[in-house]
């Protein structure tokens, strides 16, 4: 039996660039950064004082204070993005999606802000004053459950916590659910809101973050010789995946197809990529095979491109290993240069970028790429968007833990 084709019928996002798809895309193709000084808390003596924060979003205003209080910020962002995506796909968010709809959500660190708050209260006031909502805010599946409750999603649900590959894996597992006929519709996405004091401090401790505090918009510079780490960002992106038949039966708009998914593990080191990006090579290869495509078919790679010395070098090696001479021809970019690193929300956001790139025939640039690094010598679309008629795009996501999730999208 041939596999059912999987289409994307709805997109929703809230991220440092914008609070909807159109605004985010506009910034992406114009190479505008969403990174700035941290405003949500006093950065005190943290070694990093900037991040990609979501702007102009008041959860109390959006969902009412009584409801908003029950969720961590990662949950607020999830519901906001999911509502947009469902509306975009032509569903009525006031109606229950029912049992033919599943949900797969990715997050790296769940309600880490709620965790930090609860620990602070415990330290200051003791166990009897811990917020009774703490557990339901901080558990990694909180957003999955809250989105399901809000929109009446009664089919299978999964929460994937493969760090920065989480929502790439979410989109991939959602694709599998639909291909295998388990449900016709899956709300697939990711969320993260780790722009919090302890989390920034902890990532800084392992030297993962850029410390270019004086130039926040220029700090994230993937593949540049002077890159010095990633930039923490928050946001949620949701895609509505659907069987092609279901989408056509209800005359839904079709953005494109999810055609390939590859998932592998380095089994090497908890943070460092395997030498030469060996696990990434296997994931890209698997995703192409899953799509019955070859490297020659790939028009665009949305790189993981975190701006850490290790990732960008190893990802470049991995692309060269798999693509051979074609590696020097394929267009690559890292949109993290503008968004910062959405961690568990990155894979879903970058899936959206791939779909919009294919649809619009535009490759968003890698900004802040000014100094050549001999070890990063591919075409990363530096600083300016490129117009190109394309059919196939690949999205790479790699996470702490050695998790690799690669997706392949097709316009037709």
């Amino acid at each position, binding site marked *: 039996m041939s596999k059912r084709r999987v289409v994307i019928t709805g997109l929703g996002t809230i991220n440092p660039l914008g609070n909807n798809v159109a605004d985010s895309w506009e910034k992406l193709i114009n190479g505008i950064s969403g990174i700035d000084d941290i405003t949500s808390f006093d950065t005190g003596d943290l070694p990093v004082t900037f991040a990609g924060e979501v702007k102009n979003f008041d959860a109390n205003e959006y969902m009412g*204070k*009584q409801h*908003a209080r029950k969720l961590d910020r990662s949950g607020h962002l999830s519901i906001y993005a999911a509502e947009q995506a469902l509306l975009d796909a032509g569903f009525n968010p006031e109606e229950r999606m029912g049992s033919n709809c599943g949900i797969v959500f990715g997050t790296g660190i769940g309600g880490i802000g709620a965790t930090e708050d609860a620990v602070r209260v415990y330290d200051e006031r003791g166990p*009897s004053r811990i917020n009774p909502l703490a557990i339901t805010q901080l558990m990694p599946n909180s957003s999955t459950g809250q989105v399901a409750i809000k929109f009446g999603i009664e089919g299978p649900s999964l929460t994937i916590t493969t760090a920065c590959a989480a929502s790439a894996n979410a989109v991939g597992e959602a694709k599998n659910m639909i291909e295998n006929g388990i449900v016709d519709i899956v709300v697939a996405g990711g969320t993260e809101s780790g722009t919090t004091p302890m989390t920034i401090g902890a990532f800084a401790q392992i030297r993962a973050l850029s410390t270019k505090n004086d130039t926040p918009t220029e700090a994230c510079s993937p593949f540049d010789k002077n890159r010095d780490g990633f930039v923490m960002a928050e946001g949620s992106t949701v895609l509505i995946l659907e069987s092609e038949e279901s989408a056509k039966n209800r005359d839904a708009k079709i953005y494109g197809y999810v055609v390939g998914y590859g998932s592998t593990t380095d089994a090497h080191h908890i943070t460092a990529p395997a030498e030469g990006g060996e696990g990434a090579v296997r994931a890209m290869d698997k995703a192409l095979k899953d799509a019955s495509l070859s490297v020659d078919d790939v028009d665009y790679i949305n790189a993981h491109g975190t701006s850490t010395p290790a990732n960008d070098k190893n990802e470049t090696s991995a692309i060269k290993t798999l693509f051979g001479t074609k590696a020097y021809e394929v267009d690559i970019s890292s949109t993290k240069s503008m968004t910062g690193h959405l961690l568990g929300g990155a894979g879903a956001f970058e899936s959206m970028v791939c779909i919009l790139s294919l649809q619009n025939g535009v490759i968003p640039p890698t900004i802040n790429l000014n100094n050549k690094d001999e070890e990063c010598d591919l075409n990363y679309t530096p600083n300016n968007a490129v117009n190109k008629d394309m059919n196939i795009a690949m999205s790479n996501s790699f996470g702490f833990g050695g998790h690799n999730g690669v997706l392949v999208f097709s316009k037709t």
Partner: protein
Amino acid sequence: METNEVFDKVKGLFVEDLGIDESKVTMEAKLEEDLEIDSLGIVEVVMAFEDEFDIEIDDEELADVSTVGEAVKLLHSKI
């Protein structure tokens, strides 16, 4: 403290701290059905009462409390 003063303080907690719509908070309002305070929310309410009135409330004392008025009565008896 008079009952109406206790009610005003309770109303203030519900509106300011818990984000409940002011017009819903009456003596007759049912905590669960009218104010949408679920089993997790009731723990928050108790914590807010304890802090505001500097008292301790045992879980058993809550058994008979299902309306704002009953909560006010319980608090009034303990202050």
